[in-house]
């Protein structure tokens, strides 16, 4: 499977994603944001970081870069797109994903391992997970507080477009286990066609048991299925 990792000034998880992808047998290329074409890709990853120093709003400036036009075209043609952390913020700013990521409710930059429950596994990104499985993934963000209108939130729930929610280690979803104030404990969402996934937790940091754990591995290997 061919993957492309997009690099912006200020991206800082690009190499981590590349290492994870290559370890899991993807043929990966790094793509600078000024490029006006994409190599043939089955998966495009927009990595985490602080593109353009989070100026204006997180992801707003990166959302207008050259390569985003190509990503939008590819996504509309069905290419798989994964936005992690800042990548999720960029996807919402371009409109490829619904909603917006606000400042964390407690105004703190949060960097810690949290529990995330797999709400839906019948999709290309999660088919190697079990429904209701609880993962331990790392989060590291200042703006991860997912917000959208009441109608759109209902649509996300009704159409089963929320694959990941923050929970406790037993899978209970409540305010206590919501690290950043996200509506309905949302940690990740799909577009309607489920070929675009945006998520705040970092699966690429969880692919090696000697560094962390391997809870993120299945997200990538699901795509190879």
């Amino acid at each position: 499977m061919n993957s492309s990792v997009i690099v912006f000034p200020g991206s800082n998880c690009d190499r981590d994603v590349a290492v994870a992808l290559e370890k899991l047998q993807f043929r990966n290329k790094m793509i600078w944001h000024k490029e006006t074409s994409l190599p043939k890709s089955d998966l495009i990853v927009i990595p985490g970081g602080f593109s353009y120093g989070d100026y204006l709003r997180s992801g707003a400036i990166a959302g207008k870069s050259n390569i985003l036009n190509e990503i939008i075209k590819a996504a509309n043609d069905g290419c798989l797109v994964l936005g992690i952390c800042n990548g999720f913020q960029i996807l919402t700013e371009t409109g490829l994903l619904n909603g917006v990521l606000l400042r964390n409710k407690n105004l703190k930059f949060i960097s810690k391992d949290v529990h995330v429950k797999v709400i839906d596994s019948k999709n290309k990104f999660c088919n190697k997970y079990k429904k209701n499985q609880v993962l331990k993934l790392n989060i590291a963000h200042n703006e991860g507080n997912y917000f959208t209108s009441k109608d759109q939130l209902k649509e996300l729930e009704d159409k089963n477009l929320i694959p990941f929610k923050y929970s406790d280690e037993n899978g209970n979803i409540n305010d206590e286990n919501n690290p950043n104030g996200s509506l309905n404990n949302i940690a990740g969402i799909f577009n309607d066609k489920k070929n675009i996934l945006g998520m705040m937790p970092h699966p690429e940091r969880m692919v090696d048991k000697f560094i962390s754990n391997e809870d993120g591995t299945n997200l990538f290997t699901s795509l190879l299925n």
Partner: protein
Amino acid sequence: MKFSVKVTLKHDVLDPQGKVVKQTLQNMGMDTLINLRQGKYFEIDVNENEESKAKNKIKEMCTKLLVNLIIEDFEISKI
């Protein structure tokens, strides 16, 4: 032609920064303070002679980049 753009969070959007600023002011003894919301302000100079054309250009800048319409409102004024 110069314009100002005031960007404010919509009323139903949580404003944690504004809340902390409000609490701090209240702690400083500003006891008549009822509410406070934080926003953004831009000053934009455009090379246009006709006001309506210039305003449309500013509006385009707002909707395409400066403002996220899901959470923010904006107000354009001529300076």
